[in-house]
C-alpha cells in the first residue's frame, strides 16, 4: 500500500503539469531541457540495469537459493532454513472466516485507498496554495465534485472524478477478491458466493461515503444536506460490475484488469450525451438515470455472478495440474 502514493503521483503529474508542457519544439525552454536530461539519465539507468540473480517468480525456491548464495556451494548440503511463516492473526481478526473475512479485508483496503487519495489531494492544495493564489479548499473540492452531500444536484465533473476513484480503488488487489478460485475455498454456499460481488460493491461505495462524509464535516463543518443515493447506487453498481467481470471473464489476470475497466469508459462515453447543445449539464436527466441504471446494473451483475457460480460447467471442470518444480 506504500506504493500507492507513487502510483497516484505518476498518474497525476502529467495532468498537473499540462498547462506548462511545450506545444512545439520551439517552446522547449532551458528548464524543460534540464528536466528532459534528468529523465533521460534515469531512462539510460533503467536500460542499462542488470537484474540480480534471484529466484524466478512463481518458482518457490527462495529459501534454498538464499542459503547457497551465502557461501554454501552444494545445494543439497545447504542447511535447512527456518520456514518463514507469519504468525496467524489473533483476536477479532483471527476469528474472521468466510464472507466476513473477505468483507473486512476489502473494506480496509478501500478505506485506506480513498483516505490516502484525499489526504494527498488536500496536502497538494495546502502546499500549492502557499505559492499560488488558489481558491479556498471548499471551492476546489466543490469544483471537483468531492462535496456531493452539499448539493442535491449532480455537477458535471461527477462522472469523471468518481470514475477515476473507481479506477484507483482497483489498484491494489486483495488476494481473495481477484480470482474466483480463491473464493471457492471459502466455507460459503454458492448463493452467498453469487451475492458476494454485490456486497463488495456496496461495501466499496460505503467506504467512499464514509471518507466523503468525514471530508464534508472537516471542510464545511455542516451536516450533509443530501445523501446522494443516486450517486451511491451508481458507484456501487459500477464497482460491482467491474468485480463481476473480473471474476467471470475467461481471461488472464492482466487482460481482466483492463477489460473490467470497460464499464467506466462506457459511462464516460455516455456522459457526453447528457450534455446538451449549449454544453449545459442536465442533472434532472442524469440523476434518475444513475439511480435506476445503478439498481438495474446491480441486479444484472448479481444474476451473472450467480449464474457463473451455480450453472457454469467451466467452474466444475477439472483444472489442469500445476507443474511442480
Amino acid at each position, binding site marked *: 500500500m506504500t506504493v500507492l502514493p507513487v502510483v497516484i503521483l505518476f498518474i497525476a503529474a502529467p495532468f498537473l503539469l499540462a498547462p506548462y508542457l511545450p506545444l512545439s519544439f520551439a517552446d522547449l525552454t532551458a528548464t524543460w531541457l534540464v528536466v528532459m536530461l534528468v529523465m533521460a539519465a534515469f531512462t539510460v539507468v533503467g536500460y542499462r540495469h542488470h537484474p540480480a540473480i534471484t529466484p524466478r517468480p512463481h518458482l518457490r525456491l*527462495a529459501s534454498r537459493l538464499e542459503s547457497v548464495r551465502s557461501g554454501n556451494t552444494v545445494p543439497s548440503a545447504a542447511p535447512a532454513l527456518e520456514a518463514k511463516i507469519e504468525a496467524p492473526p489473533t483476536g477479532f481478526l483471527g476469528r474472521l472466516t468466510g464472507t466476513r473475512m473477505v468483507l473486512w479485508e476489502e473494506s480496509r483496503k478501500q478505506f485506506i485507498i480513498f483516505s490516502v487519495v484525499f489526504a494527498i489531494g488536500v496536502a497538494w492544495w495546502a502546499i500549492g496554495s502557499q505559492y499560488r493564489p488558489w481558491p479556498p479548499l471548499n471551492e476546489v473540492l466543490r469544483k471537483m465534485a468531492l462535496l456531493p452531500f452539499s448539493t442535491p444536484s449532480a455537477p458535471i465533473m461527477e462522472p469523471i472524478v468518481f470514475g477515476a476513484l473507481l479506477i484507483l480503488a482497483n489498484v491494489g488487489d486483495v488476494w481473495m477478491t481477484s480470482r474466483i478460485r480463491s473464493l471457492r475455498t471459502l466455507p460459503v454456499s454458492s448463493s452467498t458466493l453469487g451475492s458476494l460481488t454485490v456486497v463488495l460493491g456496496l461495501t466499496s461505495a460505503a467506504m467512499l461515503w464514509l471518507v466523503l462524509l468525514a471530508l464534508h464535516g472537516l471542510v464545511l463543518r455542516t451536516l450533509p444536506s443530501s445523501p446522494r443515493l443516486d450517486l451511491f447506487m451508481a458507484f456501487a453498481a459500477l464497482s460491482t460490475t467491474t468485480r463481476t467481470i473480473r471474476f467471470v471473464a475467461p481471461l488472464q489476470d492482466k487482460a481482466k484488469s483492463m477489460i473490467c475497466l470497460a464499464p467506466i469508459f462506457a459511462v464516460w462515453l455516455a456522459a457526453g450525451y447528457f450534455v446538451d447543445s449549449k454544453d449545459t449539464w442536465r442533472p434532472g436527466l442524469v440523476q434518475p438515470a444513475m439511480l435506476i441504471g445503478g439498481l438495474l446494473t446491480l441486479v444484472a451483475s448479481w444474476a451473472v455472478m450467480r449464474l457463473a457460480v451455480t450453472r457454469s460447467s467451466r467452474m466444475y471442470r477439472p483444472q489442469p495440474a500445476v507443474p511442480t518444480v
Partner: protein
Amino acid sequence: MVPRLIIDVVRRRWHIGAFAVFQLHIFYPLVAKFWPSSAGMAVTMCGGWFLSMASADLFSLRVLFQLPVSRRTWWLARWWMSVVAAVVIAQLASSIGQWREGSPLFGVEYALLSLIFGVLYCGFSMGIRTTPLGKSGVSRRRSRLR
C-alpha cells in the same frame, strides 16, 4: 533474442494493445471537453505510463522462464515493451482522438514531441523501478505470490 521475444509477445497480446487504443481514444474527447489544457501530451504520458505498469507481467509466464535466456535479455525485452511500445500505443490513441476532434494539436511535430516526452516519462519510471523504492514494491508482490 530481444526482437524475437518482443515479436512473440506482440503476437500473443496484440488484442490487449488494440483494446488499449480503443479505451484511450474514448478517453481523449472527454479530457478535451472537460479539461482542455491537459488534452494532448498529458494523455500520452499518463496513458503510456499506465500501459507501462500493465506490461510489467508480460514476460512472467512460467513457460517463458524455461527458455535459456538471461535476465538481462528479459529486462531489455520488458524495457522496450514498457517504454516504447506503451508510448506508441498511447500516442496512436491520442492522435486518433485529436484527428476525430479536429484538434489543432494534430500534426507530426506535436506527435513527435509527445512521443519523446512519453518515452522519457516511462523511461524515468523504469529507472525509478531499479532503485530501492521500485524494488520494494516488486519484492512485496512476489512474496505474496509464493
